[in-house]
Structures are given as C-alpha cells and as structure tokens.
C-alpha cells in the first residue's frame, strides 16, 4: 500500500462515513425524542434515491401513489380521533398536508417525469414525495402506541421495515438504479482526483449537521425537541406536545434519509433493499454514541466508513463481518462506561 492508495481509501471512507453520519444522526434524533429505534430509516434512503432515479428516467415512481394512499389513511384516522374528541379545529391543516399535497404531487408527477425538467426540480419533487411519509408513518403506526415500551416500538419498526422493503420491490423492481450526478467534474488534489459529487456530499453533510445544531440550539421547535428528548413527562408538563415533537422528528428523519439517498445514488447503484444495510451501518455509528450523543455518532460514522474502506482493501471477504463485529466491543465498552438509562424515565 502506497500513499496514493491510502489517500484514495481515505477519500472513499470519508465519503461513506458522511452518509453513515447523516443516518446515524437521524437515528439518534428519532430515538431521543420518541424512543423508537427507527430501522426503516434506511428505506427512506432507497425511496428518495429511487424516486429520483425513476423521475430522471421518465417514469412516475410508485411512491407518488403510496403517498396519496397514506395521506387518505391519515385523514381517516385524524377524522376519527377528531370526531371522538369533538375537536375539528386542527382538521383543515391535516387535509392540506395529508390530502391536498399528495393529490397535487400525484397530478404533477407525469410532468416532473417529463423531458427537459432540470435535475434540481426533480430532486425537490422527489423530496416532496418522500418526506411527508415520515410524519404519516408516525401518525399511522407509532402515535397510537406512543406510550409502549422500547421493545414494542422496536418490533413495530421491524414490521414497518419489511412493509417498506416489500413496497420498494413492488414500486422499483429488483434491479438497481443510478441517478445522474448532481454536480459534474473533478478536482485534482495531490495524487488523488476528487469528484465534485464527493464535495457535494461532504458539504451537504456539514451543512445538515450545522443546520441541525442551529435548529436545536436556537429555535423554539428545536428546543422543544431537546426538552422532549431529555424528559418526556417534564416536557409535557411545561406544555410541549410530544406528538408534534414526534411528527417533527420523523419529518426530519425522512428528509435526512431521502437526501442521503439522492447524494449517493449518483456514486453507486441503489437497489430496493440497499437502504437497510446503509441504515444498519448508520445504526452501528449511532451505537457509538449510545444512541444519545450526536458528536459521538458522527465520529463513529466516520470510523465505520474508514474501517469499511480499509478492510475492503485488506480483507474484502470479511468486510461486513469486521464492521458489524465492531459493535460488540463498543457495546461492552459502553456498558462499562455509561450510566444505564432507565426505560421509564
């Protein structure tokens, strides 16, 4: 191994690590606020990437229909609970985001898949298709059981993961897809060429991390989320709705997932089930932070990316084994080092 190879591996590791970092952050965020170990996080990567790939190939992705279906379900569920509580005040808002938005997107989808639409517009459209699925899944699946134990929520997550993977196969088929690069060109830095897409991934990762930092530190909603994360009951006592917090968290998680998917779909082939393995590696990263620390998760993600890249050079048949075995010493170390968080705060 010479310097050039080491540098290329470093570049590759950082690139993958950045994506794992984003997913790790989303996992930590969702767990802190709602206590859900969000296994379907990876599916948003797939849905985002493949929706964009389908639009770029002139096809209407099945996610458009799914969004409409989920929107109708959300409206029905909301109508039922509004009727029971005899409070219809918030209902028009539900109709707008869960029914009107999917309907508009469904109608516009053939246009977005048409010839000559700029890639940026397609990215925005695909994001609009996938992101509302986050809060919809929260409303349909997690909100009715928000008081359940972490284990029950985990089992539900597994079910949601399988459902979404199955739908992914139905919508996108078994073969992989790629999207056109968001930015073309490459820059020669020393002996290694860095593609512009790499910089785009890194820049967006940093931007998102920075954005999340400002969101949590400076804004009311962000602080509300943090408060919910620290103490759910306390947050409710001071008037923070854990439901709004949960919904917001899932929106953020879906957005991060979909965006990550679009970033890597130009670099690698994405299959209907790719998201799961990427999400798992994000999960390993999140474990580094004990599912509670953002900086530790980000550092863990970078480490996972680098380890993966170098082990693929040294011992490619054992690459996945090495990455996932890593979780054992980390768990041991965390179980000695950290205070045990009680489940029922």
């Amino acid at each position, binding site marked *: 191994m010479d310097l050039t190879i080491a540098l290329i591996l470093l570049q590759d590791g950082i690139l993958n690590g950045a994506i794992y970092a984003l997913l790790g952050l989303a996992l930590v965020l969702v767990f802190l606020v709602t206590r859900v170990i969000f296994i379907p996080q990876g599916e948003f990567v797939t849905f985002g990437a493949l929706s964009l790939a389908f639009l770029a190939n002139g096809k209407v992705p099945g996610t458009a229909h799914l969004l409409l279906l989920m929107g109708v379900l959300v409206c029905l569920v909301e109508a039922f609970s509004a009727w029971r509580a005899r409070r219809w005040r918030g209902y028009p808002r539900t109709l707008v985001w869960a029914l009107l938005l999917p309907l508009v997107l469904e109608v516009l989808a053939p246009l977005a898949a048409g010839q000559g639409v700029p890639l940026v517009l397609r990215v925005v459209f695909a994001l609009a298709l996938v992101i509302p699925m986050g809060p919809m899944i929260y409303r349909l699946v997690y909100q009715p059981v928000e008081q359940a134990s972490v284990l029950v929520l985990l089992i539900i997550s597994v079910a949601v993961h399988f459902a979404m993977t199955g739908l992914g196969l139905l919508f996108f088929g078994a*073969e992989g897809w790629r999207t056109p690069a968001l930015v073309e060109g490459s820059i020669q830095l020393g002996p290694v060429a860095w593609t512009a897409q790499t910089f785009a991934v890194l820049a967006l990762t940093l931007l998102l991390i920075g954005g999340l930092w400002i969101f949590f530190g400076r804004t009311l909603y962000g602080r509300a989320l943090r408060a919910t994360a620290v103490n759910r009951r306390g947050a409710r006592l001071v008037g923070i709705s854990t439901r709004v917090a949960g919904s917001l968290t899932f929106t953020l998680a879906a957005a991060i997932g979909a965006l990550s998917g679009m970033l890597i779909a130009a670099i690698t082939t994405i299959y209907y089930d790719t998201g799961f393995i990427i999400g798992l590696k994000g999960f390993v990263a999140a474990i580094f932070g004990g599912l509670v620390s953002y900086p530790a998760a980000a550092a863990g993600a970078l480490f996972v990316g680098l380890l993966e890249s170098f082990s693929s050079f040294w011992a490619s048949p054992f690459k996945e084994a090495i990455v996932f075995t890593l979780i054992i010493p980390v768990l041991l170390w965390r179980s000695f080092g950290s205070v045990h968080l009680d489940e029922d705060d």
Partner: protein
Amino acid sequence: MELSRIFRPTLMAAAVLAALPLAVSAQIKVGVTVSATGPAASLGIPEQKTVALLPQKIGGESVQYIVLDDATDTTQAVKNIRKLTADDHVDVVLGSTVTPASLAMTDVAAETGTPMVSLAASAKIVEPVDGPRKWAFKTPQNDALMAHALADAMVKQHIKTLGFIGFSDAYGDSWLQEMKGAAEAKGIKVVAAERFARPDTSVTGQVLKLLAAHPDGILIAASGTPVALPQRELVDRGYKGQIYQTHGAANNDVLRVCGKACNGMILPAGPLLVASQLPDSNPVKKSALAYVHAYEAKYGAGSVNTFGGHMWDAGQLINRAVPVALKSGAKPGTPAFRTALRDALENVKELSASQGVFNMSPTDHAGLDKRGRVIVKVVDGKWTYQPDL
C-alpha cells in the same frame, strides 16, 4: 318441502357430475417455486413471468401450474416443495432460482419421489447423479462450461494474468474455483482474488488491490445490476486491460445502470442473449427466438431476459418428457407417473430450447454442451455476438 323433493335428485346428480371430472381427469400438476422476492428477485421475477408462457396442454392433458414464491429463502423453498408435494400432489417441481434453495429441495424431491428441474446454476445440484440427485435436473449452464468458454476467449486475447472480483457468496466461490481450474489449464495465472457483496455501495478498496496486481484481464463474477459497480470503478480508476463478466451480467438492466463503462466487456452467455444475431445454421436460433417472441408478445418489446429462459427451458423439458411418461400408462398424480416422468426426463435427447441443446443421460442431468454458450461483447451499449472468440 315440495320443491326440495323435486330438486334433491337433480342436485345430487349435479353434484356427482361436478365431482366426476375431478376424479377421472388426468390433469398434470406442475409445482413452481421461484425467488420472486428477496436478493435473487431480479432472476426470479422473469422466471415467474415465463410460467404464463409455458404449454397449457401437453400430450392431450391439461397442465395446471401452481406458482409459489420462496423469497430467496432456503427454508421457505423447502416449505414450498413440501406443500406442493404433500397438499397439491404435483407431478414435477420447477425451481428454485438459487443454488442453496435448490440443493435443500433435492432431499424432499427424492423423499417424495418427485422429479424437480432447478433453475439454479451450480453443478452441485445434479452432480454426481446419485442419491437424492437422481431426482434433480437443471436447465442453466454449468459454471464450468462458461468458465472454459471464457478461458478459451482469454487465450485468443493473449491474456497471461487474471484478476478476479466476485460476490462473497456461493456464486463467487463457485466461479473462483471453476475459473482457477479453467484458466490454469490454459496457462493463465489468477494473480488476485477480491470479494464484494451485492448491496455494497463502494468497491474502491478491492479495485485498488486488483489494480496493484497489474493483471492483463479482470473477471467480475456477480449477477444482475451489481456487476456494474466494479465495472464502473475499474473504468473510472483507469484500468486499461480487458474486463470479463460472467453470464450473470447478461441482463439489459446491467447496460442501463452501467452506461458507457460497460462498453468492451466480454462475457459468456446462453445463445438466447444474442438469438437474432446467430447464424441460421445455429441449432438454437429458432428455439431461442420462439421464447423471445412469446415473451415480448406478452410483456413488450425488449423485455426479455436470459434468466426467464431457464424457466422456459424447464417447460420445454416437461413438454418433451410428459408424453413419454403418459405412454407408460401411469396416471398423473400417482407415484408411478412421477417415476416414469423422471425416467423420461433422463432420456431427453437433442432438445433445442432457448439456452442450448439438451442431451440428458443417467450421468448428466444438466445436459447442455458447447452449443449452450456463446461469447458476447458489449459494443456501443449493445450485446454483440463474437463468433471468433
């Protein structure tokens, strides 16, 4: 009361009449289990779609196909064949798509005395023909057949050293073993062997290691669209040697995902892939085009896929063997018929199908020979038949 007295005998007669055809008809039941979901879905889906094109009547008897999905899961495949044999009393089982599931199914096939035709590639399913493998047949080409074709092409292209990157599963293992044997027999040295997994998002490390070994040629042993990842990485990293693929890459989706990076790659494939380019003298041309036309008439132009051809060929084997088995006098649905069908399958001779010409024998349950593979090169994003390689 009055009414029921009048109607009762009529009803009884109707019931008896309705039951009669079931009792006397000799409908042939074909059980199918394919991996229409899970990791091998890209192979299983075209196979499943092909079932609709298989003969509905053989030797004057109607054929019923019972299609199950095993989700590329060995346990599920075994459950499926148990259900097909125990509940549906099928006469023959087609499937499954992948090698591990097919291997596990052979035991049930032998135990229940049901012939099975696997759509998986590994020679281990049918070789050697003894014990439970007496009941197992398969339609895809052996990896060894393809590896020898590649080795011959490599000799003609003056390749002395070969790099290898393959799936970290049975497919990659089998290919590494076969290719090493075939290459070394021709004096080609395998200088590096790397692995990657289907859902991997990067193969940079493996590709760098291959490049460091400076091989004249590199073989990518993977199937479906994942083959594009190492191919693109090799081209992006400036590899100038010849890149080879296996017949797992013979799939139009590969060209879509791979784009320009796949131009120039060489692979062995069933003649089906380039059926229309074959010379008229080729014994497989007509039978391969028959499948292409049947499939594209139903699913649209350009939709045909070589993996589905293996299911079509299994159908052709049945089509040839069932009339022979019927002549023995045994009734479908009986153990005697299944045994007769197995014997008939073993004696299929010179059957031109979509992927080659089958010649089964008591020692060969795969039956394909050199007519079952051609060398194909991708030129300007199109599969191009290479008669000289």
